[in-house]
Each structure stands twice: as C-alpha cells, then as structure tokens.
C-alpha cells in the first residue's frame, strides 16, 4: 500500500518530462532528423532551474503565482488519478469534480499571470486559453458522465477501473466516442498540434507558449514541468479507456503502464507529425467535434 503510493508519486514526479522527449524524438524521425536525446527535457529543466530570471517591471506577485499554482494543482490532480491497475492514493466520492476544477484553478492563475505582463500577445494567448476551455470543460464532463454511468461510481479510481476486465459489448460504442473526444481534449489541454504548436515562435498564432513569453529561468522551468505533468495526468486517464490491459503478475503492471504511456506519447508525436496546426478560427470546430462525440456517447449510454 505505502509502496504503491510511493511508486505513484515517484512516477508522477519523474516520468512526465520523458513524454515530451519521446514526442520530440518521434517528430524528428518523421522529419528525417536524429532529433534531441529522449532525456533532453530533463536537461532543459535542470538548465532552466539554474539560470537567472528577468522580471518585467509591469508584473506583480501574480506573475510568479501562476507557475506555482499550476504546478501545485497538477500535482494534486495527479494524486487523484489511478495509474494502470493501481488505485489512486486519494479517492473519494466526487473527486472527479475536484479533478476538473483543479485544472480550472490552474487556468485562472496562468491566464492571470499572462495578463499581468500587460503585453497584448500574452493577452491574446490568455483569451484563447479561457475561450477554448469553455468547450473542452463540458466535453470532459460528458466523458465523466459516461464513465460514471458505466462504472456506477463517482470516484475517479472506480470510474476508470470500472471495466478493467475488458469492455462489455453494450458500452463499447459510447466508450469509443468518449475516447476520441478525450484524445482531442488531451491535445488541446496540453497544447499540441493541431490546436497549438509548442515549437512555433510566432506569437500571434500560439496559445500556451505565448502566455509564457515573459517567464524565464526557474519560472519557465516550473511551467514546462507542470505542462509535462498535465500531459502525464490526462494521458493516464485516457489510457484507462483505450488500453485497459492488465497482467496477472501485479508488479509487471507498472512497466506495462509506463510502456502504454510512452506509446501514447509516440501516438501524439505521430499526430503532430502528420497534421498541420489548425487555423485559430477553426479550433472551436475541432473542440465542438469533441464535445459532440462525448455528447453522443452520453446519449448512447442513457438511451
């Protein structure tokens, strides 16, 4: 029990930057390049934590609170999500709502920190972030409704383990729709192509990267670290639906989960390589698609 929680926390703290490394490696292969080492994100983070930082004269304490609050919230959210077949360290009836609202809290403070700089670019990014969340948040709740109905429970752990023995045929169709919808939300929330491009340097077309233009040094490091944890957390949720596999040897399930998660990262890398970023005006269509998919999943479930 204790050991399980320790492994959970260690994975939550250590593994996330690796996912970004895998995504970048896959993208490089698709582009015919060797690419940065898989561990590059770790090196980046260490370098950033050592660097000095420049603060804008316009900013207040809110500017520093943004990264700090977003790291705290994703860590707490990470403790609510079960990893593989193992239960989450914290599970209680109604934790799914806390899970969703923790991301809301992170959004509140990251966008406030962006506005704190007084830059119009960062204002644009913040506006886009809160706008797109208005579509992705209902999508997540549709997905939760479906999962709660499937599992008959209101704790994330039970909801996501509700079909650990495999899908029953009756719920396959709604779950497929929900899985696609959640995958789109995953791409949007973690700022990947086709919604956002983490590599671009054109301020006008970005969401997340443009919000953090003025963060530097350790603050930027925290932001990137928090972003990778967010990818880990939402990915862990999604894996329960698309790959609910388990082996009989209990301890083998940890490596299995890690392998699945790296596979998901590779999949994101493939999506990023074969797709172009959408026009900003078209992003709402994509998110509405996700909303509709999850909504129809819900309809199929309760019909």
């Amino acid at each position, binding site marked *: 029990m204790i050991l399980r929680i320790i492994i959970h926390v260690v994975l939550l703290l250590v593994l996330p930057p690796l996912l970004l490394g895998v995504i970048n490696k896959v993208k490089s292969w698709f582009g015919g390049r060797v690419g940065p080492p898989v561990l590059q994100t770790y090196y980046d983070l260490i370098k950033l*934590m050592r*660097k*000095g*930082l*420049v*603060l*804008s*004269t*316009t*900013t*207040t304490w*809110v500017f*520093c609170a943004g990264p700090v609050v977003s790291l*705290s919230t994703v*860590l*707490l959210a990470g403790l609510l999500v079960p990893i593989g077949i193992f239960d989450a360290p*914290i599970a*209680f*009836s*109604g934790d799914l*709502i*806390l899970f969703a*609202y923790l991301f*809301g*809290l992170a*959004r*509140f403070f990251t*966008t*406030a920190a962006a*506005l*704190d*700089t*007084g*830059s*119009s670019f*960062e*204002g*644009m990014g*913040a*506006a886009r972030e*809160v*706008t797109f*969340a*208005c579509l992705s*948040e*209902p999508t*997540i*709740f549709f997905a*939760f*409704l479906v999962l*709660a*109905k499937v599992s*008959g429970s*209101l704790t994330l752990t039970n909801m996501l383990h509700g079909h650990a023995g495999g899908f029953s045929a009756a719920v396959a169709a709604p779950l497929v729709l929900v899985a696609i919808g959640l995958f789109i939300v995953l791409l949007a929330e973690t700022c990947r192509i086709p919604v956002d491009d983490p590599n671009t340097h054109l*301020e006008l077309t970005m969401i997340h990267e443009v919000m953090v233009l003025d963060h530097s040094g*350790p603050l930027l490091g925290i932001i990137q670290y928090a972003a990778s944890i967010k990818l880990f957390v939402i990915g862990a949720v999604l894996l329960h639906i698309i790959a609910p596999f388990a082996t009989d040897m209990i301890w083998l399930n940890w490596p299995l989960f890690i392998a699945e998660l790296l596979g998901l990262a590779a999949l994101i890398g493939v999506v990023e390589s074969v797709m172009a970023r959408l026009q900003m005006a078209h992003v*709402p269509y994509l998110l509405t698609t996700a909303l509709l998919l999850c909504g129809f999943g*819900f309809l199929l*479930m*309760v019909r």
Partner: protein
Amino acid sequence: MFSIWMLLAASAVLCLSGLPGCLLSSRSLSGQRTTTALMVIGSLMGLGAVVMSLGEATTPSLRMPWFLPWGQFAVSMDSLSIVFLVPVFVVPALGAIYGLGYWKQPEHPQNGRRLGLSYGVLAGAMALVAVARDGVFFLMAWEVMALAAYFAATAEEDNPDVRRAGWVYLIATHVGTLCLIAMFALWNHETSSFALEAAQAMPSAVAGTIFVLALIGFGFKMGLMPLHVWLPGAHANAPSHVSAVMSGVMLKMGVYGLVRMTSLLAVPSDWWGAVLLAVGGITGVAGIAFAIGQQDIKRLLAYSSIENIGIITVGLGLAMLGRSHGRPDWVILGLGGALFHVWNHGLFKSLLFFSAGAIIHAAHTRDIDRLGGLAKLMPRVMGLFLVGAVAICALPPLNGFASEWLIYIGLFRTLGLGGEAGLPTTAVAAIALAMIGALAVACFVKLLGAVFLGSPRGVATARAHDPPATMIAPMIVLAVACACVGLFPMLVSVLLDNASRTWAGLPASAGSIAMAAPLGWITALGLALILLVALILLAMKTVLRSKVTGKASTWDCGYVQSSARIQYTGSSFGQTLVGLFAFVLWPKTYWRALRGVFPRTARFKSNVPDTVLDRLVMPLFHLAGRHLPRLRVVQQGWTHLYMLYILIVVILLLIWGGLGAQT
C-alpha cells in the same frame, strides 16, 4: 418563544436605524455613525435570535389577529427561514460599516440621510419577509422591501441613468408583485386562508398554476432570464454597498419565496423540476455570457449574479425532482447545495461589490477598459478581490466550489448509479454547470486582468490608493468567511440538512449532506492545496531572491517604446467568446473604417446591450407609448366621470355574479 420576539425587535431596530440620523444635520458624520451602530446592533440581535432558536425544541412562532380584514399577523422561524436570515444579518451590517468610508454623509448631504433610512428599512423588511407566515403579511413586507430597495438604489437621483434604472426596477418589481398577488389569491381560494402552511393535496392544475405564478413572481426578483431586465441597471447605478445588499441578499429573498411556496405545495409534478433545471441552466449560461461582454464593472458583477441565481435554480430543480421521485438524496444534495450557494454567493458577491466600490472610489470610473494596473496602487483590494474572484469561479479551495460540488454530485447521482433508478437526462444539467464554470473563469480573469494587472490605461487611476480601514475591514471579514466556509463546509452542513428536510417534509433519518458527500476530503484537499502552494512558494522564494538578474520592460517584439494602450483590453479579451454567443448577446458594433486618400479619423466601438430589455421590452413600451394615448378619450380628468365608470363596472359585476348564482 423569546427568540421570535428578539427577531422582531431586531427587525424593528434595523428598520428604524436611519431615523436618529434624520434628526441630525444632513452633513453630520455622527448621524451616519449612529445609523451604522444601530444597524450593527440590530444585526447582532438578529444573529442572537437565530442562535437562540437553534437551541429551542419547537419552532418559534407567533400568531395573532390584526386590524386588517384579511390575513393575520403570523411569523415563524423554522430552519428554512434561518438559512435566509443569516445573510440578512451579515451583509447589510457590513455594508453599513463599509458605507462609513464609501458614502460619507458630509460628502453626500443631499441623499445621505435618505440612503441611511431606506437602507435600514430594506434590511429590516427582508428579515420580516423571511419569517412571515401569512400571505398578506408577506406581501406587505415584500412591498416594503421592494420600495426600500428602490429608494436606496436611486440615491443619486440627479443622474438620468440612475433614474432610468430606478424606473425599470420599479416596473419590473411590481409586475412580479402582481403575479404574487394573483398567486396568494389563488392560494386563498384553494386553502380558504392566507396562512402559509403546508396545503392539502389540490388539483394538479391548480398547484401547477400556483407554481408558475410563484416562478414568475419570484423570478422577477431573482433575476431569472428573461425576467432579469431590471437587474443589471439597478445594480450598476446603486451605491456599491447597496448593490452588495441587493445582489447578495435581496435576490435571495426571491429564492426564499420560491423555496417556501414549493415546500407548502403537496408533492410536485415531474415537470416542475424539469422547468427549474431548464430555466436555471439557461439563466446561468446566458447570465455569464452577458457578463463577459460588459465593460461596466458593476454591470458585469450584476450579470454574474444572474448566473449564480441560475446555479441555485438548478439545485432547486434537482431537489424538486428528488421530491417528486421520492429520492431524499437528490433533495439533500440539490437543495443543500442550492441553499449553501445562497450563502456563498452572498459572501463573495458582496466582497466583489465592495471591491468594485473601492475601485470606483479611487479611480472614479466604472469602465473596465479605462482601468488597469491597480494591483500596485491598491494591493489590499487586489488581494481581497482575488479571493472573491476565485470563490465565484467555484474554484477550490474556496466556498463556491463546496456548494457547486454538492449540486454536481446530486446531478451525477441522477444517472442511476449501481442499479438504482435514475433520470439520466437530468445529468445534462451538469454539462451546463461545467460550461458556466469555464465561462466564469474567463469572465473573472478578464475583470482581474483588465482592472488590476498590466499597466494603467488612463490618468484617472494615477492617484488611486487602498481605501480606509472602514472599507477594508468588512471586506476582510467576507474574505475570511469565504475561506472558512469553503475549507470547513461541515460547519454549516447540519443547518442546511435541517432546512432541506423541512422543505421536503423528510424524517431525520432521510440522510444528510455529510453522508451523501465526503466533506472531510474537501477540507483535507483544500488544506493540502494551500500547503502545496505555500511549500513551492517557500522553495521558490530563495531561488527568486538570488536568481533575479534584472528587471526589464515586458517583451514588446522589439518596439522601442510601447504604450499602455497597446495592452489587451477587457473587451478584446472577451471578443471571441462574445462572438461564440452572438446568437443571444447580439453585440452592437460601430465601425468607421479608414477610406479614401484623406480619410477621416477611424473609430471602433462595441458593446453588449441587454437583449431582452433593449431589443424586446423597450421597443414594446415605446410601441405602447405611441398607440395607447388614443385611449385617453375615456380619461377626461373629471372626477364624476370616474365615479360613473366605477358605478357601471360594479353594476356589471353584480349582474355577472347574479348570472353565476342562477346557473
């Protein structure tokens, strides 16, 4: 028994609190101080009465005949009343203290005394509304409350905007009262008494009519869409502490009326709950969408009140469905969450209106797009505003989250989990709540960012500073209350349980919030979150101190000199969302583009007027104003003629009555 007398005394003290001030000079600060002291004393007495009544074995009530031919004097303080009495005794007193700094009588000799008087009457009348147990007495208290609010809100009557908002409010509130009069008449017809006591089963059509009349009549006061027309204008134009009381407490009296009437009616039909859920969802989403489009800080807050009323209505709808389907857990979670949100909204909305008042006090403008960069000039107000904003977005660990969480759990339970019967379509309301939550974050980040962050956009704000202690202290009280209630919801859950059981007539064994939702985890995780943030901050502090290599201006893409006007304004921040919701918001834009070789100055203006008021109600009134004057032929200003009309009508009625008797 003593507690009810004490409560009536408290109400009397509140009602009369403005009188001593009227005897003193219109420029005297001591008059205002006396008024405030009486407000505080009256409120403390009221809170004392509430606490005492909790200890009493029976519900304290009082009933005696009076001089009027209808109804009687009947008051009672059951657990439902108590829930609504608490905000009445908290917010107005804090507002009065706040007013000592915000609306100093020597600076407002024309209206200071009048404001003090009507403000006290408003608070006292609200206390009576919450305890009245007779239709006639209730209507009287209701009308006094409505009129007192009118006089308090139109303190600055020399401003035409204020007068217009006052007119709209007066008309709207009386249309609502008309519905209530019809409702009580019908009630009297069915139960042959005006007494507000649980009725025997009545024909479902009659009960349904009473419900609809209550929904419309009280809906005007609550600000349910599309009956909200009076609300934004009245809240925006009233003095800020009056806005706080109106939004934080008076709207809730509408909620109280609806809750009370639905508790008196026998088991409700299915469609009542469905109607409430639909109306609540629409009110919530449309309210917050309108809020995003506003440029006036107080109008924005007013629209967000409409949104919160929507959330409360969703909770009430869930409870109603629970009653008609015999599901006590839905009742406990739905009504418990709704009543909890009534309190919470009273706390954080008052805090936000107080902050708005402090901003207006310092910067002399309500226009969000002219403000900016106030965080450095008013750090305390900024911190307190941030607490209110996080709370109203229902974000953990503050109180807004706790109440919405209960409603969410209730809605998820309607899915029919683990083999129990359910009503899954109800759960769609959770999607509306999720959307409201995301929109609220957008709305309040916009407000926070445009007002407090970035650099100042105008010269008006240059001399802004934190307000005096009389204004800050009430805000601190409210902020602390937001945090306490949010972190320790178990402190209040028993009161809410009692109220929910009273409402639905459930036995004590029917369950409680604490059984249906693990409140302890909210406390634990809220504290954990705060601890985690504090730890990371602590760790960062040394880093930040040693690593800051320099200060520079914000990255501006290489422009040599950027200007404050280049910043993203509140309007631009909300533009995409306003566009997405254009089908309800109908934003107005005025754009004169550059044209020709020697163009005139280009101009761009955009605003979001109230769709219902400005595009439906006002045109209708103008139409009526154009065509109805033809009816003036019957109105010759000749008293004899009017008496003749009365005679004719009475004779006609007599004939009609006679015909009815024969058949």
